[in-house]
């Protein structure tokens, strides 16, 4: 556990509670706009909790600190989830929750580096993040900087050829400081990812290219912690991939059981209902 306590924030809080707070922050932002990629945010909250409150080294008061681990959000539309984590980490103030997606906000609907402290890259044009992360990992090695580059990407991005260019390159350049997280929720804009451009057994594909690969239940925090630890501590020269199987809308049962789509529709009165439900499952 190498993270520094976020300045002025709670310490000694469980990862379950961090994930719960990330879900709550996401729902509050979704309520502001009456929309948002809430399905993805709820699904990835546990992975972000482990990233920001177990695995990563950073300084909340200095988001550009040279020694920080870099976190690249390739999937720009997951910004709502990352803002929720950055708020929980104390990098963004929670007073800005109500500005989400508004004019002049530092939290636009799609994540962009120039808008938001802690947002390392501009994602959104899918299939770019891993290649940028490759370049950052090469740059860190040039500087003999021991930080890791984390890249959060989606299963849909496996359809982009540029992803596989980067997959090969990370092995070629022995980027053992690169950890990519693939959120496998089997949803993309037009439906199931596996119905659109199925990559088959994702883990074995990455392993065949030479990556150190783990596949875990991305909503089971103990498993995610173990996978991040193994990825960081792996002794080989390989780049590391963690395939996280996640459930869209995890934590809000009436949304989990709704017909799941890429952009989950939430009625105006349902945001409060979702928050009410979350309150009943608040961890200590």
């Amino acid at each position, binding site marked *: 556990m190498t993270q520094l306590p976020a300045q002025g924030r709670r310490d000694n809080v469980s990862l379950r509670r961090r994930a719960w707070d990330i879900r709550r922050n996401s729902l509050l932002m979704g309520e502001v706009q009456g929309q948002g990629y809430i399905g993805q945010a709820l699904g990835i909250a546990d992975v972000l909790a482990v990233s920001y409150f177990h695995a990563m080294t950073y300084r909340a008061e200095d988001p550009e600190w040279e020694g920080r681990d870099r976190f690249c959000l390739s999937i720009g539309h997951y910004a709502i989830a990352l803002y929720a984590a950055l708020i929980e980490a104390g990098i963004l103030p929670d007073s800005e929750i109500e500005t989400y997606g508004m004019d002049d906000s530092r939290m636009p609907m799609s994540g*962009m*580096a*120039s808008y938001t402290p802690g947002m*390392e*890259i*501009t994602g*959104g*044009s899918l*299939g*770019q993040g*891993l*290649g*940028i*992360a*490759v*370049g*950052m*990992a*090469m*740059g*860190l090695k*040039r*500087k003999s900087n021991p930080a890791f580059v984390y890249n959060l990407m989606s299963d849909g991005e496996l359809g982009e*050829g*540029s992803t596989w*260019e*980067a997959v*090969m*390159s990370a092995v*070629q*350049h022995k980027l053992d400081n690169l950890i990519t997280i693939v959120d496998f929720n089997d949803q993309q804009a037009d439906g199931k990812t596996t119905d659109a451009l199925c990559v088959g057994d994702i883990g074995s594909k990455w392993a065949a290219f030479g990556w150190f690969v783990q596949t875990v239940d991305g909503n089971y925090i103990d498993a995610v912690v173990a996978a991040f630890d193994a990825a960081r501590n792996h002794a080989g020269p390989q780049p590391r991939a963690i395939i996280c199987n996640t459930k869209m809308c995890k934590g809000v049962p009436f949304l989990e059981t709704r017909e799941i789509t890429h952009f989950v529709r939430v009625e105006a009165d349902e945001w409060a209902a979702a928050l009410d439900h979350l309150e009943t499952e608040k961890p200590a």
Partner: protein
Amino acid sequence: MIGAHSRRSSKYTPRKAQAQTDGLTTSAMIASLDAEGRDTITAPFGNALIELAKTRDDIVGLSADLAKYTDMHVFANAYPDRFYQMGMAEQLLISAAAGLAREGFTPFATTYAVFAARRAYDFICMAIAEENLPVKIVCALPGLTTGYGPSHQATEDIAIFRGMPNLTIIDPCDGVEIEQATHAIAATPDPTYMRLLRGKVPNVLGEYGYKFELGKAKVLRGGNDVLFISSGFMTMRTLDAATALQKDGIDCAVLHCPTIKPLDIETIATEAAKTGRLVVTAENHSVVGGLGEAVGAALMRRGVFVPFRQIGLPDEFLDAGALPTLHDQYGISVSAITAQVKTWMK
């Protein structure tokens, strides 16, 4: 019949290439631009990069399997630990360059102009230009500098890139300017696209005491009848055409405009406003979306209404063949330029 636009029908009869006798009929992809009797400078880009690297640790080079054909190989030989071979993967080339720039480096990334402009566009746009990162994209085979056919002829690269905010675009004339411009673009933090002539590159501007300045167009030669506004190796051609036209009593000025974006509108408007001259833009690029249209629009916006003509490549997929033949055929050789100007000046 589907695809009925075929250039070579079943009734094809081979034509006798006029240039056959002087051995220039090759359509080889990597042939250097013919120096036409001038001195040459070897690998001006690669050698300038080596000079830069001596004092700047932040300079790194990348290529997508075209180091040898962009003169990046001389840098790679001099600084093997500062060169990244990214393989035949242009999207990765650009993304990785962006990542290196994020970590404080100044990456020079090379490929052919067609692959940067056509294949890697979205990556240059979002990973580099939108982020305003100091990546320098330096590309060989600009415009019609290969007879290899449309797969390698970047006839619309400038049109593609002009619409990209934040991106500086340079179209240097010769070896002197490539060397100077490499230093100049390394000295700014701006994302930059530069067209490249490689190998033994003609020395054209040496005799003019020329000094490249980013964003500046420069008068290389005065004249009262025609004002050429040209970029890239077309300035070599307009200088030669000006000499040739002198014999016909047509007095031509040459304004060399290597920075396509941001365009030196002040100098262009001032020169074009001098009365009594036909303004002729000349570019190694499609007449759509390049220097000519940029100049034309700038003059209109400034209220400078003057007789205006464009020399450039037609809005077509060009033929394969030998460069001298193609330059004549498409109107960008010295003789083709002089013929067009004489027609306009009748």
